[in-house]
């Protein structure tokens, strides 16, 4: 019961900060609202007993991506810039499209019986413990993820090189 109330509070906070992130006039405010949404997601992962993903979420998203976004905003926006205003027609169309999308999703969820189904069969509580995830990542067998894991490290290296090449000044 307490977990349920906690879930509702976290879900509400996540939705509110997500809405703030996409509607804020000042782009810096939306980056700050993004922190709220990501932090709520980390708490939700803890509730779903996925500790490793929760920690990775905080480290990579809040500590890395959002700080990076804030740096870029500060580098590229001039103080006193007029707030961006999308045409009203575009906003109305986007709102209608998104409402239809959400309605379709929820309808499908309802038809599949997920919203009335109250059984809460859960996986073993250590399903995402550091030990299990580490063993699966480095398992070279058919069930393991060793090759994707190594490819991801290669991808990160390529990304670092690519980002430096793209962002450097021309003629240097």
């Amino acid at each position, binding site marked *: 019961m307490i977990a*349920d109330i906690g*879930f509702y509070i976290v*879900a509400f906070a*996540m*939705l509110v900060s*997500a809405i703030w*992130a*996409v509607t804020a006039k000042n782009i810096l405010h939306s*980056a700050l609202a*993004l922190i709220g*949404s*990501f932090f709520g997601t980390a708490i*939700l*992962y803890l509730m*779903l*007993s*996925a500790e*490793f*993903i929760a920690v*990775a*979420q905080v480290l*990579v*998203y809040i500590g*890395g*991506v959002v700080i*990076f*976004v804030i740096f*870029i905003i500060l*580098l*590229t926006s001039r103080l006193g810039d007029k707030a*961006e*205003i*999308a045409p009203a027609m*575009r*906003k109305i169309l986007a*709102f209608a*499209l*998104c409402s239809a*999308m*959400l309605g379709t999703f929820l309808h499908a969820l309802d038809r599949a019986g*997920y*919203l009335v*189904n109250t059984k*809460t*069969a*859960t*996986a073993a509580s250590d*399903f*995402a413990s550091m030990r299990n*995830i580490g063993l699966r*990542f480095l398992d070279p067998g058919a069930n393991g*993820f060793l090759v*994707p894991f190594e490819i991801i490290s290669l*991808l*990160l290296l390529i*990304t670092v090189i690519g*980002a*430096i090449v*793209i*962002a450097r000044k021309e003629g240097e």
Partner: protein
Amino acid sequence: MTLGYCLALAFGLFVIGAYGAMTRKNIVGILISIELMLNAANINFVAFAHFHATDSTSGPIFSAFVIAIAACEMAVALAIVVSMFRRHKNLDIDKLRELHG
């Protein structure tokens, strides 16, 4: 807290992100919305793994891959933003028409 509520929350976040991606005029705003959408997809992976899966550990592992790839995507995209700002002094997508035939 059931699977259905977690999925509904993820759908809500995804739709909010989609709305942002459609209405923002600043490139950085669009990237923020895309991050929200990726995050919503991640919630689905972890929720399904927690509530019913025969092989629960692989759900969070997919989530970890999505997080890593989202970080890569953000690094390259923001490098492109810096380069574009240097060239055009402006990040309004309606005014950046280099790829427009």
